[in-house]
């Protein structure tokens, strides 16, 4: 399939259409909502499911040296992308060092839902992918925060601003490392690994069969939330910052493509590697930023990550990353 066919197939898939429905409903001010606790449950389900399935795959193939390299490469990307993002933001926008660092943290970290949508796009093409990509998602979640805090500190000192935090960084890092999504992803991954295909067989009617449908419903909610965030938040974004929300994922994707080259991942795995790098966090990192950098404005970083980059990745990004992956993946 050509990249354009890929993009079309993706955009007309039920998952993207349900996202669009949510977006449209929110923008039209419909009172449609997915109840909060149910949305949390759907997210939990999706992570439990991809974690478990990833673990079962690893149980089949066993540990390889490549796995370690992939984790190292992903962790390095999560550390490095914020530096780049910060540099770009400071150059193109008038945002303070602290706002810029907070945004940078989001783009170095990852979005699990974007990753899950990526797995479905990959699966729709019949492509397999390495099971440990799920573990990579967990690995890439936190390093970006460390980078960003260092950047904020250096930048603020230069600006003469005060970021002396009441927070101990180590306490915060521990909290982030044990945040719900990391625990359920890694925990389910390990359980899948231990119980293997026989465990999967018993649990599959729950975590495999309805997976795609539940993702659709979850994306309906994501569309509603993103749409409501846009309605309130877009006015807070200047043009350069808005543009950043579209361009930064592409830059991350290109870098990730280069980094993925020597890793020898399958086509599906490479696409997911790129997708992770290009995705931006909107759950774990914002909460961490409220504690570590309370002066940074959530109306900016949340709107950018959730209202701009997430929809972009879901619709156009993922097929593009598939096309990029085709250039470098092992076959």
């Amino acid at each position, binding site marked *: 399939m050509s990249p354009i066919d890929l993009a079309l197939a993706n955009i007309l898939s039920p998952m993207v259409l349900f996202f669009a429905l949510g977006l449209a409903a929110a923008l039209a001010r419909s009172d449609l909502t997915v109840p909060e606790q149910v949305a949390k449950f759907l997210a939990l389900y999706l992570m439990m499911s991809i974690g478990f399935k990833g673990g079962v795959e690893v149980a089949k193939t066993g540990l390889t040296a490549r796995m370690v390299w992939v984790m190292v490469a992903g962790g390095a990307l999560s550390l490095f992308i914020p530096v780049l993002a910060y540099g770009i933001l400071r150059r193109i926008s008038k945002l303070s060092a602290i706002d810029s660092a907070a945004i940078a943290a989001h783009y170095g970290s990852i979005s699990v839902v974007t990753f899950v949508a990526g797995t479905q796009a990959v699966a729709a093409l019949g492509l397999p992918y390495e099971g440990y990509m799920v573990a990579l998602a967990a690995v890439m979640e936190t390093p970006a925060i460390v980078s960003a805090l260092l950047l904020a500190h250096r930048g603020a000192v230069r600006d003469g601003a005060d970021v002396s935090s009441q927070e101990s960084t180590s306490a915060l890092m521990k909290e982030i490392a044990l945040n719900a999504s990391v625990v359920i992803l890694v925990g389910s991954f390990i359980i899948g690994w231990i119980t293997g295909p026989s465990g999967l067989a018993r649990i599959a009617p729950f975590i495999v069969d309805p997976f795609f449908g539940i993702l659709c419903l979850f994306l309906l909610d994501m569309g509603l939330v993103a749409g409501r965030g846009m*309605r*309130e938040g877009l006015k807070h974004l200047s043009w350069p910052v808005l543009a950043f929300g579209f361009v930064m994922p592409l830059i991350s994707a290109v870098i990730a493509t280069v980094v993925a080259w020597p890793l020898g991942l399958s086509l599906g795995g490479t696409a997911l590697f790129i997708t992770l790098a290009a995705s931006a966090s*909107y759950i774990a990192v914002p909460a961490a930023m409220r504690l570590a950098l309370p002066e940074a404005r*959530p109306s900016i970083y*949340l709107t950018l990550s959730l209202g701009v980059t997430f929809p972009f990745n879901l619709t156009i990004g993922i097929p593009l990353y598939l096309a990029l992956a085709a250039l470098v993946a092992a076959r």
Partner: protein
Amino acid sequence: MQTHPKKRLELIIEAPALNRLLDILDKQEVSGYTVMPVLAGRGRQGRWSRDGLVGMAGQMLMVVCVTSDHRVPALLEAVSKFLARQIGIVAISDVEVIRTEHF
């Protein structure tokens, strides 16, 4: 029936900062507090509602704390220093309770 004057603090605080706030209350040795859910609101940062949120950032919570008058100054000092950097408000009012030893 005999009642005793106390102060009631009502704090509205962003969810990610809740545990830090409770630690402050603990350190001030208040006898207790109660955390309540919040659905939506408006402040200087504009309207928000749970339906427009994913994750904790942006979500507010209410903390109610009934305590003795003599604790209030130190408590307010600590809380206001904390609120200088986090999103939130505090309102203090007079209440009467029946079991003074409880507070």
